[in-house]
């Protein structure tokens, strides 16, 4: 049984993978980690293509590998709760929704570490003050969409 927030056995190693031509040489960083689900796995760290990160697969181990320890704990808690609900309902829709949500969280953290909690902090600020001091224009956004879509 997984333990929420339990991350152990992290054993990073770095090696240079030789692929194809010299131009295709890439630096890989792999991690052997406790998956949190009763087995240790070795997974490639999320790689970057042309400097841009690639979203993790819709897989709990791949997603966890992209998260900070604090977010791993949050993911694990949701994962456990969702699996229990799925076992009771025999319906996997909730599992798919959770994985999709966390793919976005992981991708956001890869592109902009700390973004998940900054968004929540912004929401808290707006709730407390009743306004967003960095609000943009909805009309400008609509104009951009109309222009792009030719409407």
């Amino acid at each position, binding site marked *: 049984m997984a333990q929420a927030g339990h991350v152990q056995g992290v054993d990073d190693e770095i090696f240079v993978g030789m692929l194809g031509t010299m131009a295709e040489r890439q630096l890989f960083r792999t991690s052997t980690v406790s998956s949190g689900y009763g087995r240790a796995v070795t997974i490639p760290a999320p790689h970057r293509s042309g400097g841009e990160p690639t*979203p993790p697969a819709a897989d709990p181990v791949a997603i966890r590998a992209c998260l900070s320890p604090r977010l791993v704990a949050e993911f694990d808690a*949701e994962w456990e709760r969702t699996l229990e609900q799925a076992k009771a309902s025999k319906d996997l829709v909730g599992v798919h929704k959770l994985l999709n949500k966390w793919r976005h969280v992981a991708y956001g953290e890869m592109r902009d570490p700390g973004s998940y909690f900054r968004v929540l902090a912004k929401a808290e600020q707006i709730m407390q003050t009743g306004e967003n001091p960095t609000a943009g224009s909805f009309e400008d956004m609509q104009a951009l969409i109309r222009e792009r879509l030719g409407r």
Partner: protein
Amino acid sequence: MYRIVPDATVSDQVAALPDDALAAYAEVLDVLQLTPWHGEPQRADNPDAEVRRWHFGPGLAGQVVYLILEDRQEVHLLLVQWLT
């Protein structure tokens, strides 16, 4: 009807969406003005939370995270993402 208030950062995120995602995003905006509570809560352990999300587009690769201020009838857009 709820008033949509995007964060300034969202404008850049929307501008970066591919065309097919943008069309789906535009439909989400229409929905959020009417029934924002139909989105999923961002925190599964707090189903009534004001911070919610809505997935959109092919493969549900898009996600909008937003805050509902019910007393003001406002929906604050906080984040728009697209999994490339």
